[in-house]
């Protein structure tokens, strides 16, 4: 019944999990060779399995559909007379409302909402005899709905929770969206594991095993996140990656500062997770009303079909989506919860590359893409949720991009850059360009991994993270230089590199969104913000390369050692990722040629069937003609290229020519420039602001209230001690009766007996 490849689903998760277990339990006693072999092999095998699934999916798309859910429409028979079509559809709708196996109350759709009746229900719906009879009675016919999801692999381990009509399966689903992420996670993950074997090589054996155990556990959690078939399984992975991130940021836990950074990341993420949980509740509540007594599940397919575009419970759905997005801002480091990511750089650099740049932080993008049909239609008091998403994304992109310019710590530059790029992705998601966002996600995973790993090699070589003490490394580590330069150019959106196309696609989507009939003017602002961010990105990318590689080496001091080139295990991943950074551009080559349809880019086209498309949901989206589309496309590309090139030029002008000879000239600038630099270096003082407005009051008042008054006085002294005291008093009281006089005992007996007898007897007579 099931294709053979289905068995790979649990295996893909199990392999890194077993790797983590093995290294965690036995790694301490085994040699580093075995530990690293196991640890590196796990994501590699998982990658091969994922690749097998990818090709399997490709082949299966040509086979029959295997789906739990089906969508059918009831439409008018040809040339029928009788009562009007809307009337018949309404009657059929009323009758169908009594069926409890439908996932949502049937809705009348089509032009003027009177053409067809759309039903969402179990797979058997298309062949349902009762339905056919009913349709016949109303002079209607049953037809499969136009859009049908492409094939996906589904593996159900069994029912996990079943309470009343609420049922959650322990299921994994692999479809086009998740397979892309799986390939990135396992592929990039493998390279970073490989890189880590050298990077962490100097650590003692126990630490080494612990590191790889965490790293494998992270891969497993991330896979659970993207493969989970319902929100709850996703949430397991969501929390799992959060935990791994915490463990790895505070990996060097003996350093109190780094441990504190881990705690900060964890706490901020928990605040976001609360949003996810609450959002889940809201969606479930909305589903409960939509299905009216049917089986409730958190299955993505069911949720998307039942709640996507539903006008019932719009408030609940909107609130749920907004809360889920709040969770995304935590995990994906967006305003207002972005402040943990720069601090997360306390972890080992490969960790920053894997978790805090390439994979975990993109979980928010994935979640929204996964539930895009719901997000697309969700509104909160008239404001589309995706508009809020785009706004937050655009603002984050711009402000974090600016902050990146002010950083001296090479990893902090990359951290703010990551925040900024994630903002780009959310901007794309907000503009309903899911494909574009995922394309940027993939491209970003490659080039940001290159940059982080290169930065790691640099740090490894110079033993410092401050770019002020670098410089001139071009000559010492050429491989690192060239790969990082490619990565930085891609990040800067240098024409013809992957970042150029992906950014352009997002900006184009924003522009088209702004052009939509009735669209808010804010979309134009967002487009300009995106463009500005592109410029800023180019500036800080150039600055990064300039301060690190150009000019003379400023570190070491008198008699200091010269930095060494990266060892091969570190160079190989850099090289591979560099190639991927260039190659990824192919995934999103724009549809420039006139004969190409809009949205025909490889990756967006591949994803189109599983994510919501702008044209599906936005009624007022302009029916952009092919011609117009191409015009925008070409114009957008030119404008984007100009912004990027201008940025690179500015960077070259500032850091390429005069900086290298002086140590920290930036700190010598005066006047307004200095204060701007100060603001940027402190990332707009957001941390300080949060600290002053939220953390300190919380510590001062809330925590004092909870600790001293609630916990200490009320709970400890009142409840705990009080209970104890009452119990002890009661105990001493019972002793009073134990006098030892047998006559006294008999007297108690008699009193008890009389009371019992009297109460029974007097009540009964």
């Amino acid at each position, binding site marked *: 019944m099931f294709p053979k490849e289905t068995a790979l689903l649990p295996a893909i998760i199990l392999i890194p999990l077993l790797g983590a277990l093995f290294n965690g339990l036995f790694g301490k006693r085994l040699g580093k060779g075995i530990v690293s072999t196991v640890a590196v092999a796990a994501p590699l095998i998982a990658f091969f399995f994922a690749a097998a699934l990818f090709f399997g999916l490709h082949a299966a798309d040509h086979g029959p559909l295997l789906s739990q859910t089906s969508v059918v429409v009831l439409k008018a028979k040809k040339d029928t007379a009788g009562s009007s079509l809307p009337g018949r559809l309404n009657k059929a709708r009323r009758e169908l409302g009594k069926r409890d196996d439908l996932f949502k109350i049937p809705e009348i759709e089509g032009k003027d909402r009177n053409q067809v009746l759309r039903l969402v229900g179990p797979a058997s719906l298309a062949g349902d005899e009762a339905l056919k009879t009913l349709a016949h009675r109303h002079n209607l016919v049953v037809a499969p709905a136009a859009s049908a999801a492409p094939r996906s692999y589904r593996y159900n381990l069994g029912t996990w929770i079943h309470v009343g009509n609420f049922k959650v399966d322990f299921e994994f689903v692999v479809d086009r969206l998740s397979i892309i992420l799986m390939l990135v996670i396992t592929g990039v993950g493998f390279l970073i594991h490989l890189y880590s074997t050298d990077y962490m090589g100097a650590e003692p054996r126990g630490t080494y095993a612990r590191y790889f155990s965490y790293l494998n556990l992270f891969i497993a959690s991330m896979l659970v996140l993207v493969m989970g078939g319902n929100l709850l399984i996703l949430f397991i992975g969501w929390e799992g990656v959060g935990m791994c991130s915490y463990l790895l940021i505070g990996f060097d836990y003996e350093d109190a500062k780094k441990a504190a950074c881990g705690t900060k990341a964890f706490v901020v993420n928990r605040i976001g997770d609360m949003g996810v949980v609450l959002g889940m509740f809201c969606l479930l509540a909305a589903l409960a009303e939509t299905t009216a007594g049917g089986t409730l599940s958190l299955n993505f397919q069911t949720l998307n079909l039942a709640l996507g575009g539903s006008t019932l419970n719009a408030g609940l759905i909107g609130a749920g989506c907004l809360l889920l997005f709040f969770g995304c801002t935590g995990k994906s480091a967006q305003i207002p919860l972005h402040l943990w990511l720069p601090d997360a750089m306390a972890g080992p650099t490969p960790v920053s590359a894997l978790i805090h740049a390439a994979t975990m932080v993109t979980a928010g993008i994935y979640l929204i893409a996964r539930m895009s049909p719901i997000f697309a239609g969700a509104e909160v008091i008239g404001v589309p949720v995706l508009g809020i998403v785009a706004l937050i994304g655009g603002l984050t992109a711009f402000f974090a991009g600016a902050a990146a310019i002010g950083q001296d710590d090479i990893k902090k530059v990359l951290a703010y850059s990551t925040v900024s790029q994630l903002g780009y992705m959310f901007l794309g998601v907000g503009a309903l360009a899911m494909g574009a966002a995922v394309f940027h996600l993939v491209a970003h995973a490659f080039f940001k991994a290159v940059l982080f790993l290169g930065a790691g090699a640099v740090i490894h070589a110079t033993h410092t993270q401050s770019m002020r003490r670098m410089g001139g490394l071009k000559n010492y580590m050429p491989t690192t230089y060239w790969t990082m330069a490619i990565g930085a150019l891609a990040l800067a959106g240098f024409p013809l590199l992957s970042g150029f196309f992906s950014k352009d696609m997002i900006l184009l989507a924003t522009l088209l969104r702004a052009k939509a009939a009735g669209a808010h003017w804010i979309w134009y602002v967002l487009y300009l913000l995106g463009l500005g961010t592109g410029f800023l990105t180019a500036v800080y990318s150039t600055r990064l390369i300039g301060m690190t590689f150009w000019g003379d080496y400023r570190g070491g001091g008198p008699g200091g050692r010269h930095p060494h080139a990266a060892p091969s295990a570190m160079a190989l991943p850099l090289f591979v990722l560099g190639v991927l950074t260039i190659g990824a551009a192919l995934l999103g080559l724009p549809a420039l040629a006139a004969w190409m349809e809009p949205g025909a880019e490889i990756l967006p086209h591949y994803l189109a069937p599983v994510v919501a498309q702008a044209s599906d949901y936005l009624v007022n989206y302009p029916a952009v003609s092919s011609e117009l589309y191409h015009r925008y496309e070409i114009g957008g590309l030119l404008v984007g290229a100009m912004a990027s090139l201008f940025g690179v030029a500015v960077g070259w002008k500032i850091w390429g020519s005069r900086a290298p000879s002086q140590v920290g000239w930036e700190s010598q600038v005066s006047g307004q420039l200095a204060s701007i630099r100060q603001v940027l270096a402190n990332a707009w003082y957001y941390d300080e602001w949060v600290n002053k407005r939220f953390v300190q009051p919380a510590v001062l008042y809330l925590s004092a209230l909870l600790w001293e008054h609630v916990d200490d006085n009320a709970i400890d002294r009142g409840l705990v001690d009080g209970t104890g005291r009452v119990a002890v008093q009661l105990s001493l009281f019972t002793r009073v009766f134990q006098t030892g006089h047998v006559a006294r005992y008999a*007297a108690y007996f*008699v009193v008890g007996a009389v009371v019992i007898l009297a109460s029974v007897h007097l009540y009964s*007579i």
Partner: protein
Amino acid sequence: MSTFLVLLVGALIVVAALMTVTQRNPIHAALSMLIALGGVGALMIGLKAHFLAAMQVLLYGGAIMVLFVFVIMLLTLREDELGPEPPSATRLLAAVGALALTFILFSALSRRSDTEFREPDNDAKIAAAEAKGDVRRRTKVYYGSTEHFARVLYTDYAVPFELITVLVMAAVAGVIVLARRPDSMTLEATKLMASPAASRAASAGGGAA
């Protein structure tokens, strides 16, 4: 038995029972109890339970009372050895409790509408048994008679009857345990003898006691 007689004997039993618990002198208390037990025997006769009445008088009035009196006389308790009176609060409580119990029981029992004593009708059963050729009930067995009692005790009530033998065994074993010679003496003896053979001899002696 006429209602008057029942009331009279009942009153006697109550008074005697009260005296049993209120008398300070143990002999007086024991004799009051004898009266109460005898009164119960009289009531049994009234209920045509002649065998039980006889047992009541023989066992309680005879054997047990004699044992009580013997023990009391052997101990020759003086006034100060009787121990303190229970605290007056306890006694008050007991009195109130007893009164309340009396009230409750009276209230419960007085509600019975049908207080006539009727002998269970065995005639029909016997006739049916004879019709089936069952010989074991050829003679009419009167309710409460010795024969009836014996028949029921040895057949239907075989289990409780046999269980009583276990009870008596337990009582005997218990008496042996409780009444054995004080250990302090054997302890001294063992210390002196300190050899297993001697101790075995000593234990044989102890067992006989």
